[in-house]
């Protein structure tokens, strides 16, 4: 293709992208995408802010006695005193001012050793938003998919389609990336200013943010464009998508990706097990949660397929329909299931931890504040992730419901009670929410509980019952929250479902 032709195709792509902007469904899609990407950018910036906190700390200080103390790269300091002055210099001489000002920050943010954990947590919080964004990009609206199929039918090449898809999200991605900073500042007001001293999670904005901002913005745009291009791939949108929508089974490449990530996860776990105190262990501990979430998100679709198959085997029509629907498009619900699996696991850890702390008889108020605060914060983050995952679920499910309007109406015409159709959707939602959340909680609570049991040597009688109790509580918390989320999603789906079941839907294409 000559340069001129490429430019023409690109401008045609821009025209298509702009002209569909007037479609209300498309506008809603862009707003959702923008919001999700903005949140991604904000949490990325939070990670940047926490990670770079203290790196640009004060280099030299003058002491009351006239000495100059400079921090050197190794973390120590050198003291230059005027002749005749000899001051005893230690960590506490300057009220801690040699290290950055951590007054007011929560201990796990303030203490440099714990800070990477917080960075990882911020990165983990990007995942649910990214899944949500991916969901919006991928399915978008059935109308969008049909539009791409129609373009393909008219002779657009797959490169054209990718270009159009990219053009559709580029602007949104850029706006979201730029809006990331204001959003972060809002987050900072919420988490770094409003909370009482000692509970603040985000440091005062520093120069690093100015550097991080454009980098994050570019990252967001690139990720969105790449996702959109993939979603517009020939395999996903064929010309026939116009008239017949096919099931999109999982591909071999996604199996490979899942296997690789799972392999890395196992490798990390083995490393940790073999050398729990080695130098690498610290890094592994930090990276492991990220790998785990990646593995869960990658494996989610496969889990959903497995659950779907089990439903189908159960044979009753509601289960069969729900199962078939899960199998027909396992990707989006699968990713949500992955996030919820991770959420469940985190709940399991947290609950186990809390029970462990309280039963271990630690009564030091500092300890309690430290662990309690950390766990509360973690639970809030987990809750946020769960809510975002539930919203992804709503977007995906309403998509599927509206897409299947005509067959759904035909099903009702055939004599299915509306309640039956509702039960199908409920089964679908629960299978990808309650099931993985409970599974994660069981695994998490058992792992940590088992760890405690081993660490305590089983010497104390309460260890095993406490571990079992932790499992039960974790299951109740995670399962309950997921069921609540599924119920909420179901509520939000009531209207699209009613619309799909109405006779008018028999008139749609």
């Amino acid at each position, binding site marked *: 293709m000559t340069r001129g032709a490429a430019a023409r195709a690109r401008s045609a792509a821009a025209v298509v992208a702009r002209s569909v902007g007037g479609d209300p469904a498309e506008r809603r899609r862009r707003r959702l995408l923008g919001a999700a990407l903005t949140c991604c950018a904000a949490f990325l910036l939070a990670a940047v802010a926490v990670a770079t906190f203290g790196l640009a700390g004060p280099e030299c200080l003058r002491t009351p006695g006239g000495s100059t103390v400079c921090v050197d790269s190794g973390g120590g300091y050198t003291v230059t005193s005027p002749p005749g002055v000899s001051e005893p210099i230690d960590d506490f001489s300057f009220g801690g001012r040699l290290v950055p000002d951590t007054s007011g920050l929560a201990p796990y943010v303030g203490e440099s050793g714990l800070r990477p954990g917080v960075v990882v947590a911020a990165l983990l919080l990007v995942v649910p938003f990214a899944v949500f964004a991916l969901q919006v990009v991928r399915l978008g609206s059935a109308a969008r998919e049909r539009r791409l199929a129609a373009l393909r039918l008219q002779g657009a090449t797959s490169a054209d389609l990718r270009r159009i898809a990219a053009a559709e999200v580029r602007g949104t991605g850029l706006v979201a990336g730029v809006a990331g900073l204001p959003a972060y500042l809002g987050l900072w007001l919420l988490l770094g200013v409003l909370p009482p001293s000692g509970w603040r999670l985000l440091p005062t904005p520093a120069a690093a943010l100015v550097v991080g901002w454009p980098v994050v913005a570019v990252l967001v745009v690139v990720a969105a464009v790449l996702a959109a291009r993939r979603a517009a791939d020939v395999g996903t949108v064929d010309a026939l998508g116009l008239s017949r929508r*096919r099931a999109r089974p999982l591909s071999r490449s996604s199996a490979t990706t899942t296997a690789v990530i799972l392999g890395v996860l196992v490798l990390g776990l083995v490393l940790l097990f073999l050398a729990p105190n080695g130098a690498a262990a610290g890094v592994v501990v930090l990276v492991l949660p990220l790998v785990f979430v990646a593995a869960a998100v990658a494996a989610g679709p496969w889990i959903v397929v497995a659950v779907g198959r089990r439903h189908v085997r159960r044979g009753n029509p509601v289960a069969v329909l729900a199962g078939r629907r899960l199998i027909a498009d396992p990707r989006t619900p699968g990713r949500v299931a992955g996030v919820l699996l991770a959420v469940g696991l985190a709940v399991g850890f947290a609950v186990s931890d809390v029970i462990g702390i309280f039963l271990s008889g630690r009564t030091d108020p500092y300890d309690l504040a430290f662990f309690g605060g950390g766990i509360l914060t973690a639970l809030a983050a987990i809750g946020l992730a769960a809510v975002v995952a539930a919203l992804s679920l709503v977007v995906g499910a309403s998509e599927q419901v509206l897409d299947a309007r005509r067959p759904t109406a035909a099903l009702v015409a055939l004599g299915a009670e509306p309640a039956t159709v509702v039960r199908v959707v409920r089964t679908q939602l629960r299978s990808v929410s309650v099931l993985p959340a409970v599974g994660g909680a069981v695994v998490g609570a058992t792992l940590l509980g088992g760890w405690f049991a081993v660490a305590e040597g089983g010497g104390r009688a309460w260890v095993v019952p406490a571990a079992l109790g932790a499992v039960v509580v974790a299951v109740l918390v995670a399962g309950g929250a997921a069921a609540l989320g599924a119920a909420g999603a179901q509520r939000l789906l009531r209207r699209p479902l009613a619309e799909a079941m109405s006779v008018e839907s028999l008139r749609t294409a």
Partner: protein
Amino acid sequence: MTPPSTPGDLPGTPPPDHLAATVPVPAGAVLEAHGVQHAYRRTVALRGVDLRVDAGEVVAVTGPSGCGKSTLLHAAAGLLVPQAGTVTLLGRDLARLTEDERALLRRREVGIVLQFGQLVPELTAVDNVALPLLLDGHPADGARRLALDWLERCGAEDVAATMPSDMSGGEAQRVAVARALVTGPSVVFADEPTGSLDTLAGRQVLGLLVAAVRERGASLVIVTHDNTVAARSDREVRLVDGTVASEAVLR
């Protein structure tokens, strides 16, 4: 092969006073519609239509596009409750049934075939056909066997394991006919069942539908644009602009 035994009594059998309140159903009438009126937001679709279908009768409803054929069919099948008029289907006043009772009635006594796109996209042909039986609580094995039987009768056994997205229009319609007939309905409603097919495929599907309905002694109400389809019926009811313009007995 025998069709499944007649389904049990429907719950909500009309009480005596309810029976007295409606027009007595003439013996042999499967469907009695009186003065049916229905309007969508701005458009008046039906302006007082009477329609009677006897047991074993094949009735064609024809008329120009937009004259209200589909609306009449939907009202007759209990998919919508018209704003005025009564519809008595198999002796039951549809307006007096709850939505679930109407669903149950359709499931057990009524078959429905639409123009296209009525199969559940996630189910194979045989599962689609078995679905009404499964919904009615029949055991899965028996339902699938019966479904296969009907697919065979409808000449669609080759696509039994195929997904709707991979079927031709004619195959999908054959499957839809099998699904409409698998429960052994007393009346079948079809809205342009051959409208999306070419002449030959359309004729085959129609022949299948009419033959199967006649064999069972069931009734068929078929909405169509196609004169050759109308010519297969016993009686043509022609709608124009929401009213019955003419009726012709063809038998």
